[in-house]
């Protein structure tokens, strides 16, 4: 399938899954998982920096349209996109990424992906909950939200990755 089309479909599907399903998860008021950021994580490794930032901003803004919080998700996702090249280098270490086109579970392995997802989710959630509390929530509560939400988000994202793990012959999501 055409690569660009694949990314567009992934964008739409993840935004819809986030606003129609995941946003309605209610686990005691402190757990707010976010999975739409998987789109940014799966962008090609050699994507140009400005494309990466604009896509991150656009993605966050789409989610904002649904939740009625203009700028909140856009800001957090832009920061995450900004950190992605650094995190890629940090997570890979000596491992060469030259012949890897885009982050792929089959090629890079579960351990690599878990670390990659964990770092980016922490950055995103940190920015998101801090921005949200801008006017009103106390730092202790923000930290508790981050602490409880990060594991759930990471779990959901890894689950989606394994569910749609690409077979050699069948290129699904």
């Amino acid at each position, binding site marked *: 399938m055409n690569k660009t089309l694949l990314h567009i479909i992934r964008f739409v599907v993840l935004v819809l899954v986030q606003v129609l399903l995941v946003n309605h998860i209610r686990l005691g008021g402190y757990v707010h998982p976010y999975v739409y950021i998987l789109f940014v994580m799966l962008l090609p490794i050699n994507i140009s920096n400005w494309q990466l930032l604009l896509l991150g*901003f656009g993605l966050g803004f789409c989610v904002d349209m649904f939740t009625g919080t203009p700028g909140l998700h856009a*800001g957090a996702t832009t920061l995450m996109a900004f950190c992605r090249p650094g995190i890629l280098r940090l997570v890979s270490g000596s491992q060469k990424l030259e012949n890897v086109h885009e982050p792929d579970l089959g090629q890079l392995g579960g351990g690599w992906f878990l670390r990659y997802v964990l770092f980016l989710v922490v950055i995103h959630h940190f920015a998101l909950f801090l921005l949200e509390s801008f*006017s009103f929530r106390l730092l202790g509560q923000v930290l508790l939200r981050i602490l409880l939400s990060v594991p759930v988000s990471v779990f959901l994202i890894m689950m989606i990755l394994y569910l749609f793990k690409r077979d050699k012959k069948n290129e699904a999501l």
Partner: protein
Amino acid sequence: MYNLRRFILKHHFVILFILLEVISILLLARSQNFHRNRLVNGTNTVVGKVLESSSEVGNYFRLSKTNKELAEENAMLREQLSIVVDTMERSYDLVDSDTVYEYIPAQVVNNSTNQANNYIIINKGSVDGVERDMGVVSTKGIVGVVVDVGKHYASILSLLHSKSFVGVRFKGNQELGSLRWNTNDYRHGMVEDIPTHVELHQGDTVLTSSYSFIFPEDLMVGTVDELQSMASGTFNKARITFATDFATLRHVYVVKHHYKHEIDSLKSKFEP
């Protein structure tokens, strides 16, 4: 000029990043001021359509519960009607038939309960006569206030919002208080500014007061859950349980006050 271009090209990643973050924070800061801002919220038609079709699927699964609630409301209305008919028969005067409030039925297409500031989107807008600052009630109790109106959709500032504020009255002793939401729990609100001499008991009924003109008087708000006395000061707080179940909210009514504009223009004469 050449140097500037080279600088921008070299650092475009950081510059673009800062630019996008500044835009985000400006948008966010503007939306904090909810009264002056047109929310990007579901009043947008495309977003509204998506949310509506998703909520229709959800509605289907709740049909039996909704039926039951409507039947209960029906029973309650019949009961009230019988009282009215009774009064009419006994008195020679005609009951004043000029109604002040009109109820516009609407369906919830999007609703959140777990954010710091929650909004509700309904499928009625300016075409249906919905205007800003109208109250919204469910069959069980009050829900919120309209803050933004599109053509076919409107967004409501839920009671579950850090800036929500409603004047309330306790049923037993007629004392006043103000309802806010700072409990972070979609089932409970906090009534503040209760004078310390007021005696409250668990289970006391909390109703809307008559001073707001947003909600009709004596609508159900909730019941007292726990009284919290302050060590100092002259005011107590009481935690209440909302009568409205925000988690399963589906059918609501927008309350239209026929003389609201008149009252507002009178009020504005006193306020500079």
